């Protein structure tokens, strides 16, 4: 489905992505983990066209999309949400999602119709219901709680019906209880929409409970990959990143590594 080959990127001589090759199976749920500065967000930025890779390929269903612009990559079916919720503060929840649906349906530049367009309505309602924002449809996005803003960010991506969804720390900045709610919502989304979902996460309890497979990045390289059990037992991971107590299966979760 989504494959990256030998991806490299440096900023002003400092190497941020050092030849990363990874594959994500269609319909899989993958967590990307790694210490701060490991290059997780850079990895997302390179896939989604925020930055152009120095070299390497990004294959989506066989097509090389490396170097395309962000809108072009979105059109090919990769959606993303951000670590800090990226929304449209003056829009109500419903209007923001409607506008995103318009963009997906290619109707966003129409001058002669009135907003909202009837064709976008059912899709917008469905997306709101999917993330559970239905009750806040008329609230200005800028006035939403932090958690709801994160949900809206995801909803905007979902409005595009992505084949691959990239979530950068969906639980960032939340309390423990809120985190579990959020990841539960994300997990349900994945089950219902059958898409390829890749998320960055720091909470190891969440990672090991929900991810089908895990990719560990460190200093812009792939440290390990595999199922949660494989990663948990991977010597390099234990040595370099997770710490000794993972061997015994103790949860290292709630504090950020």
């Amino acid at each position, binding site marked *: 489905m989504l494959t990256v080959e030998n991806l490299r990127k440096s900023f002003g001589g400092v190497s941020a992505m050092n030849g990363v090759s990874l594959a994500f199976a269609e319909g899989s749920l993958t967590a990307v983990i790694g210490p701060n500065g490991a290059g997780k967000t850079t990895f997302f930025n390179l896939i989604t066209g925020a930055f152009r890779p120095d070299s390497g390929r990004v294959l989506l269903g066989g097509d090389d999309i490396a170097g395309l612009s962000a*809108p072009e990559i979105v059109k090919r079916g990769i959606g993303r949400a951000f670590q800090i919720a990226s929304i*449209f503060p*003056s829009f109500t929840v419903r209007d923001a999602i409607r*506008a995103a649906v*318009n963009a997906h349906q290619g109707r966003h530049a129409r001058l002669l119709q*009135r907003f909202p367009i009837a064709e976008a309505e059912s899709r917008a309602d469905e997306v709101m219901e999917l993330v559970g924002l239905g009750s806040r449809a008329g609230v200005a996005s800028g006035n939403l709680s932090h958690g709801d803003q994160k949900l809206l960010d995801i909803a905007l991506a979902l409005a595009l019906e992505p084949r691959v969804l990239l979530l950068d720390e969906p639980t960032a900045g939340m309390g423990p209880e809120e985190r579990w709610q959020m990841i539960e919502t994300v997990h349900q989304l994945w089950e219902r929409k059958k898409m390829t979902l890749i998320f960055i996460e720091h909470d190891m309890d969440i990672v090991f409970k929900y991810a089908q497979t895990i990719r560990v990045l460190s200093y812009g390289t792939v440290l390990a990959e595999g199922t949660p059990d494989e990663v948990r037992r991977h010597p390099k991971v234990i040595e370099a990143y997770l710490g000794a107590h993972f061997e015994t299966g103790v949860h290292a979760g709630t504090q950020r590594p």
Partner: protein
Amino acid sequence: MKRSPFVRDLLIAVAAIGLLALLPAAFPAKAVSDFVIRLSALAIFATSLNLLVGYGGMVSFGHGLFYGLGAYSFALLMQKAGTSVPVAFALAVLINAGVATVIGAICIRLKEIYFSFLTLAFQMLLHSCIIAWTSVTGGDQGLTGGLPRPPFLGIHLGEPRQLYLFCCVVLVVSLLLMRHFVQSPFGYTLRMIRDNPRRAGFLGIRVWRIQLLAFVVAGVFGGIGGLLMSLFVSSAYPDFAYWTVSGEAVFMILLGGMGVFLGPLAGAAILLLLNDMVTRFTEHYSLVLGIVILVFALGLRKGLLGTAADLWVRWRAPAARQPAKG
């Protein structure tokens, strides 16, 4: 079932034209109809700038370029090429659209203050060309000899009353069209880009295309404003392309409130009124205007209509949810 918003706007527009048509009967003074004509030109111009500034977050300092361009292309077509009013109107719109496409494509690549400066530079470049190209434009004297206004379709613009009605209709139709664009999917996309251009890009929106479209639409209507003014003064002057035209339009927008569609119209009306009243009582118009500007800039940030709209929302529903701007 609720009436569709477009039908509602249309009804308001028809009512507005009706009221404006009756106005001279109630106030026959020439000063009143002249006021409305000048207002029509400036209100279209200020509203078109607000498409960029208020709805698109693109702070152009050089929108007067299109005001001047519209005035000169229309006036020159009428005077030198002897075209009829509708043809000159249509050609002036096309010229503005063409120039806006080229200049917009160059300016939009720049962000923030650099975008502002580049638009200003282009405007002043046009101003310099008008001053320098005396054989065509009459230089700093403006176009001399007046505009011929041959009748078309039974409309005779040399007749003050018909000119008045023509300007009223152009004003209301222009506002109706701009209102419609602002409420279209394009208008919402433009607001998305204003709020968060990066996110808009990650929703598959090619930001520059939307911004360019906005620039062209604004340029066309800015030109229509200038064209009406040249029709009224029966000439065109380099001052139409001077930077102060842009400065005043910015002030009109802020005065009326950029978050409300009719804010620039209200701002234009207030500024014109202020101008006419103050100059009657004192020669120190600048001093009074300057103080008014400071009061607005430091006090009423959202403009008159914006402040009124806030009060209205608060009054209607004390714990109200705030709807999307515009």
